[in-house]
């Protein structure tokens, strides 16, 4: 059934038990909304030099947006900003693939489960909400650092 391609077990697991949820100390905070459906996320990024040491968030929204934030936390915490940006770009590419992409499991890990979501234009924004917030918050955090390279 088509629905199962969107609501993979991995997604439903992350939705029911989100990783890293809750706001903790960070270097920069952003608030993003999806104006069409009212999904919201407040997200903080904590960097140590070029390393992502924490991504914390409070969010409300559908299972796709909630699971996506959880997977984001899994994938970027502990990486350098440069590595994490590469993951973010790979995820963005997958979500823009209109159901054609499968995603590189080496890079995206659990996030390949979102491949099915890319078939549903109305839901792509849900999946990308936290990732766009992370990108924005990271840029803000980097801008505050005097001279850090990736």
């Amino acid at each position, binding site marked *: 059934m088509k629905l199962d391609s969107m609501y993979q077990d991995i997604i439903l697991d992350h939705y029911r038990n989100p990783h890293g949820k809750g706001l903790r100390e960070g270097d920069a905070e952003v608030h993003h909304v999806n104006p069409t459906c009212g999904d919201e996320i407040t997200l903080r990024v904590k960097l140590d030099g070029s390393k992502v040491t924490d991504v914390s968030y409070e969010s409300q929204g559908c299972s*796709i947006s909630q699971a996506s934030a959880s997977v984001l936390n899994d994938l970027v915490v502990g990486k350098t900003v440069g590595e994490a940006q590469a993951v973010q770009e790979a995820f963005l590419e997958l979500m823009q693939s209109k159901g054609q992409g499968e995603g590189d499991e080496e890079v995206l890990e659990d996030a390949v489960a979102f491949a099915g979501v890319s078939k549903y234009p109305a839901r792509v924004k849900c999946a990308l909400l936290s990732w766009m917030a992370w990108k924005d918050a990271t840029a803000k955090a980097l801008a505050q650092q005097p001279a850090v390279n990736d």
Partner: protein
Amino acid sequence: MTHAHEPSVLSGLLDTDAIRKDFPVLQRVLHDGKPLVYLDNAATSQKPRQVLEALTAYYERHNANVHRGVHVLAEEATALYEGARDKVAAFVNAPSRNEVIFTKNASESLNLVANMLGWADEPYRVDADSEIVITEMEHHSNIVPWQLLSQRTGAKLKWFGLTDEGRLDLSNIDELITEKTKVVSFTLVSNLLGTINPVETIVRKAQSVGALVVIDASQAAPHMVLDVQALEADFVAFTGHKMLAPTGIGVLWGRQELLEDLPPFLGGGEMIETVTMGSSTYAPAPHKFEAGTPPIAQAVGLGAAIDYLQGVGMEKIAAHEHAITAYAVERLLEVPDLRIIGPRTAVDRGAAISFTLGDIHPHDVGQVLDEQGIAVRVGHHCARPVCLRYGIPATTRASFYLYSTPGEVDALIDGLHHVRNFFG
């Protein structure tokens, strides 16, 4: 699973088997054999063949620009366009056809009123000493134009709050509507809550202080008898596409003496009497408010839609929807964890029903319903303040029309049980 009621126990139903044959899209089968269950009528209605044929006939046989042309097609197009105005005037019981202004939708109609009042001379002028009163249950199209007017003029914007039951809280009406109030604008039927508002109480109060009354009838015109004289409003706005007509055609009805006194908003062709390089004089209403080539085919389509609705009968349509709504409310309340946002009865309620289902997000509800061929709307329905009022991010909304059946209500209920199992 609960048992569906025998549809025969519902009284006042229309012959939907016959009606549905007129709507080609309702024959669609989705997702490997599931018949379309279209429950998104508050967003837009489907179109009967009679409307589609009127559009085709217009373009195939009569297409021309309206007014002033002396050739056959121009005269035919003008007669069809102005004929549609006659049909709208009769449909809303307007005292004069010249009180019917064609716009592109209800949003444009409401923006038009707000701009007329911003540019008007006394006594209508909205300025820094004025107050504007709306309600917390308005569609954004009846909030934002007034916010803009308030920001541009300095007028104070006030609003009625809502009760826990999804009705207007009129307890502070005397503080809200005062001698300073220039305009009171409110919806006749809420697009999110389904509530039918007590027009007479508000109109009486507004009249007592000399305020103009604007009624957003977008969710009323498709579903019930709309009589602008009985409403005693000064302006009534609605849109065609929710009442079987194409998109791109809306209506603003306004009292004739107001339309004569108030200034135009958009300038251009068709709205003038005479033009020099220095200044212009304006055509009488309604043309004063219809600058540029109007949506001609869409107006013709609206005329055909009105013919169709009146052929069925607005009172019968209202009775049908009331029966369907009562049945739907009753069955929805059987679903565990389901909370109706709005009146939990069919009394003074239209055919749009919003609800939440436990903590399952409406997006997920809508997606799983879609997989079963059931089309509902999810989100804040362009009425975000209502969601804020009830502390919810969004709702799922099912909304019915003259072709909706008890069987479709049953399909919705079965679908919701499936949603609960899926995310349970």
